[in-house]
């Protein structure tokens, strides 16, 4: 089977995706976080809420991802290892939804680390010392957890470095916790 490089698939899908102005996107996200800070006051609560929102987004994004990727590259089989899953996120997922691609490394069989060189979410962002505990891009962790959760992979995603906190890159560590088993629901028991 001829294998299309993932970055090529990412480019094809990106070229077909409707775009929005990146500054508009950045500012809209900024307004969202600012509003949450006003509503919840405590940064830990804001982090939690951002992650929750991210999960809900991720559950839907994965379907868009799957349907578009299967159209752009019908011969690509589903990922069979967790590292392939990571590659697909780095080269296709980030490209298709954020317009960037990121580097990936694999510290262990159940972990991968994504390195983002420029994060469109956190352009213009400076965290004031009084809000130090705020994980500004926490929504990304939620999206990764939500989307992989929808394909039966329970993962934990966390930041190692964050550009908006003075690091030179943003790194996200994703660890696989378990594979969720398929099962039928209530209506099918005892039949």
């Amino acid at each position: 089977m001829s294998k299309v490089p993932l970055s090529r698939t990412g480019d094809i899908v990106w070229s077909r995706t409707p775009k929005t102005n990146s500054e508009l996107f950045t500012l809209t996200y900024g307004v969202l976080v600012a509003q949450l800070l006003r509503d919840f006051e405590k940064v830990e609560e804001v982090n939690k809420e951002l992650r929750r929102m991210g999960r809900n987004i991720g559950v839907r994004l994965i379907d868009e991802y799957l349907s578009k990727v299967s159209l752009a590259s019908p011969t690509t089989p589903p990922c069979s290892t967790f590292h392939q899953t990571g590659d697909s996120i780095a080269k296709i997922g980030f490209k298709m939804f954020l317009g960037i691609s990121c580097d990936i490394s694999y510290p262990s069989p159940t972990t991968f680390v994504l390195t983002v060189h420029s994060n469109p979410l956190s352009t213009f962002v400076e965290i004031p010392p009084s809000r130090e505990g705020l994980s500004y891009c926490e929504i990304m962790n939620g999206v990764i957890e939500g989307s992989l959760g929808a394909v039966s992979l329970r993962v934990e995603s966390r930041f190692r470095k964050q550009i908006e906190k003075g690091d030179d890159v943003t790194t996200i560590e994703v660890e696989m916790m378990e594979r969720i088993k398929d099962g039928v629901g209530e209506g099918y028991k005892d039949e």
Partner: protein
Amino acid sequence: MIYSFYIYRRDGVCLFKTTYNATEGDNGGDNRGDNGGINRGINGGDTEAEDEREKLVFGMAFSLKELIGQLSPMDGNTQQQIDCPLGTVKTRSSTMHTYETLTGFRFIIYTDPSINTMQHHLQAIYRIWVDKVVKSPLVKQKDGGYDISDTEFEKRAKEYLEKVPGFRR
């Protein structure tokens, strides 16, 4: 000819079902003879039979997949069973076409046996589903499924299927 169309989520809850090509006042009695009962209740039969049928369709798809999963060969490199999604189940009277997404949605269409493959049509319907249901902020999620009662999905899916060659006999 396309008989019926179902969408299930991962745990077997039916999110959408519809039948096509049902004639007015037809209770399926006419079809019973040469269809060996498979078509029974499909054309406007009572709801209890409909519900039963809905469960049988999912049960069949689910158990067949489990069965096939256990029989499928091992991959030499990864020592894991090769993933082999269920495609088509063909009988003399009808054909069941299934498409399962990685997110656990199953799209199942029943047709008469003259239609050989519906896979790319099912994928096209998945794209309509993503467009009209998953991406719509109006569609609320309720524990892993979607409430599609207020979307254009049904209309668009029907429009699409009507253009499929062999929709009607």
